[in-house]
């Protein structure tokens, strides 16, 4: 059997400029899938391989989640990384592309957007599938977080920074011959493997002392680059914190209280919409629902609304526009609609 490549980013299936959160998310995803013994893994990951695979994942995670270890690793794979990223990009480009021009996006934007579209699609299918009869505890404010399309986009801008940092880190330190060596793109697979094993050695060493016995080359890389790199990451962490705080301040919805008990009536949906500065036309544009139908929904003019299935679909789409959990909005709206119609009937 062929020795698996120690490309930690590949093992966790994340881009090179993924942040801590992405690393954590990717790790949890794999762990969850494997530990749950999901049927989706049947025949893809034989049970004999599971342990070996998971130990690799753990190894990758332990390095990438630790800023210090990760920096050392990053610096040592610098040369290979550029080449690999190209491949990865072209591999990803078509995979989940939905019509946006490839050049216009960085890799991370690209995957984030693609993932979001994919997730939306899954959500939509899932939400439309069944409106669960009771029993869901409403966690709107919580569940909003992972979706948060607007803030996600906001975050995308500072995200490519770490990549720039790496470049700026390595460029002022071409002092050693080693760095030049690292920047050379290995021509053959063998060389690639060699440098990878160096990488592993570099990581196994204590990152701070770095004076462990071994060849000289990796030692120099570690000591030459480790300090500035760490300070850079502190910067990125700071920017991350800033991002987080801005995320919290962002939603205007704070003025309106949306909690477990809120009933998503037509007027309430309108209020949320207006507070976000979204017009009926905006929604009509993105959802392709007619403005008339949106207005009927908000005015609770049930008689003019189309069949129930359409209402469900409309509500789900509107909820998505307003950044709300669509299943909950649909359920709440429809139960209110039923009640009111029954009252009228009496």
């Amino acid at each position: 059997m062929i020795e698996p490549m120690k490309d930690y980013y590949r093992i966790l299936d994340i881009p090179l400029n993924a942040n801590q959160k992405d690393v954590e998310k990717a790790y949890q995803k794999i762990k969850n899938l494997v530990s749950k013994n999901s049927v989706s893994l049947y025949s893809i990951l034989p049970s004999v391989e599971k342990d070996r695979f998971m130990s690799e994942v753990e190894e990758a995670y332990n390095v990438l989640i630790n800023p210090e270890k990760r920096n050392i690793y990053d610096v040592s794979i610098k040369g290979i990384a550029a080449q690999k990223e190209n491949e990865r990009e072209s591999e990803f480009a078509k995979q989940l592309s939905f019509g946006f021009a490839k050049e216009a996006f960085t890799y991370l934007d690209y995957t984030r957007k693609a993932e979001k579209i994919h997730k939306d699609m899954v959500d939509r299918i899932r939400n439309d599938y069944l409106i669960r009869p009771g029993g869901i505890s409403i966690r709107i404010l919580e569940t909003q977080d992972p979706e948060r399309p607007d803030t996600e986009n906001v975050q995308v801008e500072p995200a490519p920074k770490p990549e720039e940092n790496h470049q700026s880190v390595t460029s002022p330190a071409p002092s050693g011959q080693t760095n030049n060596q690292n920047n050379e793109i290995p021509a053959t697979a063998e060389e690639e493997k060699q440098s990878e094993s160096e990488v592993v050695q570099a990581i196994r060493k204590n990152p701070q002392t770095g004076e462990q016995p071994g060849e000289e080359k990796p030692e120099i890389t570690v000591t030459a680059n480790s300090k500035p790199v760490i300070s850079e990451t502190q910067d990125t962490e700071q920017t991350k914190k800033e991002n987080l705080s801005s995320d919290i301040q962002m939603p205007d919805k704070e003025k309106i209280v949306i909690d477990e008990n809120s009933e998503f009536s037509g007027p309430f949906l309108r209020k949320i919409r207006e507070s976000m500065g979204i017009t009926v036309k905006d929604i009509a544009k993105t959802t392709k629902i007619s403005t008339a139908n949106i207005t009927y929904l908000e005015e609770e003019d049930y008689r003019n609304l189309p069949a129930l299935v359409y209402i469900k679909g409309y509500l789900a789409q509107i909820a998505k526009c307003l950044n709300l959990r669509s299943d909950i909005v649909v359920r709440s709206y429809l139960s209110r609609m039923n009640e009111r119609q029954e009252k009228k009937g009496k």
Partner: protein
Amino acid sequence: MTGRKRHIFAFGGGKGGIGKSFLSANIAASISQMGYRTGLIDLDLGGANQHTFFGIDRPHKTIDDFIEHRTRNFSDILIDVPGYDIMLGAGIQNDLKATNFNAGQKARLFSAIKSLDFDYIIIDIGAGMSISTLDTFNIAPNGVLITYPEPTALENCYKFLKSAFLRELRGKVKEKELKELVDNIYDGKIIIPAGIKIVDYFNSVYSELAGTAIAVMNHHNYYFILNNASEEDMELLEHIPYAIRRFYGFGIIPLGALANDEKIRESIRKMRPYIEIFPDSPTTQKIREIASNIVNISESLCYD
């Protein structure tokens, strides 16, 4: 080539009896009802019966006629589907011949299908993973895999995807030793360790092969439909694409999920499309959704 954009979708999935023919018939019907000119080609080589889904008792012209050179143009063998804007290429009735057609026949058939003048072309592909089946699947830029949320169906589905990919890759590489390598993977003589994507593996063995592999992957969009799914299976809509991407390196997009529905059998017995007999059933809604997903994705993928 005409200026028209053709979107060709092949419906496959390896395992038999998981609703490939049923779904391709009904999705074709939905797409045609959305106002697109639709072609439905029955290439289920083992048991072609698309005509039966539309109540066409005995098609007077079939793909046989084209294969046997009784007609020159493929469009001559297409028959009108009553009640729909669909032209049906009815499947081969002589099964023995069908499974054995040669490379020349195949090439002629495939190029004829590719140049048909429709908005959407739906190809129904039979069960199994014979070479002909895989080749048929590969002619379409869009491959739709149908699967059940069961280990057996998923196993076949994954294997089908991988085999179809390797089959196409084999056709693309010229060097003898690379062909051999692909064959060995195909035959299971070389096992790629779990957790390593096919492309990564090629990269470590023959990096030229990796480039070709990526080109082949980029040539296709893969989708899947989860049939016969209960609510608990919904998480598979996320897990399957993740697993396929993580372990194989393919991107695959979920088109939708359908629940078990006894009425399907009734519609087949009546020999009419399900969406016509039960227009208000949830299954019809799902089928229409899948059809509109197909249309939306196709439209958004055309950015020229």
